[in-house]
């Protein structure tokens, strides 16, 4: 497996709180993508971060990538109930392979 965590993680927080989700991967990569899947829908890309960026922001989202520790994180500030979803990190099976492999994901529940 490309990813360190094999089982779905679960987080439950109150609306307005900040949250950080983490992924660790095994094979060298230069790009990590984060996707969100809401109930009844397919995954949708939230943010893509490259190794030369180390940190990337998009609205309330912040992604980091540390190639030395082979890990990535996604933070959401001021969560809303509508942020409730499963969040996946994903990367290429091998550099430039265009075979996107997903981590097991984090089920985030934001309670109003």
């Amino acid at each position: 497996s490309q990813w360190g965590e094999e089982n779905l993680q679960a987080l439950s927080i109150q609306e307005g709180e900040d949250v950080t989700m983490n992924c660790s991967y095994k094979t060298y990569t230069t790009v990590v993508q984060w996707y969100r899947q809401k109930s009844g829908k397919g995954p949708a890309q939230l943010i893509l971060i490259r190794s030369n960026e180390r940190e990337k922001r998009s609205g309330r989202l912040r992604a980091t990538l540390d190639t030395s520790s082979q890990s990535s994180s996604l933070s959401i500030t001021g969560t809303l109930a509508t942020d409730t979803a499963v969040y996946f990190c994903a990367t290429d099976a091998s550099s430039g392979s265009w075979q996107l492999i997903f981590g097991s994901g984090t089920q985030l529940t934001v309670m109003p």
Partner: protein
Amino acid sequence: DTTVKQNPRYKLARVGKPVNLICSQTMNHDTMYWYQKKPNQAPKLLLFYYDKILNREADTFEKFQSSRPNNSFCSLYIGSAGLEYSAMYLCASSSRRISNERLFFGHGTKLSVL
């Protein structure tokens, strides 16, 4: 239009019977993917087409077939469904030509094998 469409939304199949799932996209993407997703697990890549070239994952090579008659359509075929095939099947597309790693997903087809 950035939509990937999948049909049907729900599919009921009997053990031992064939199953054919359909996906279409109108973004002129060169690459189309099929993923299998089971509850509490990550989406698992089954196969993908780059233009007309099919790439199947080694561990699912014999279980799934696919066709891509034109750029817009891609099917996933199971010759003889088993209980273990019950899952959500997600189709996605992307464009290598513009070096866009982003995948666009359909809403999925939920397959239940009885």
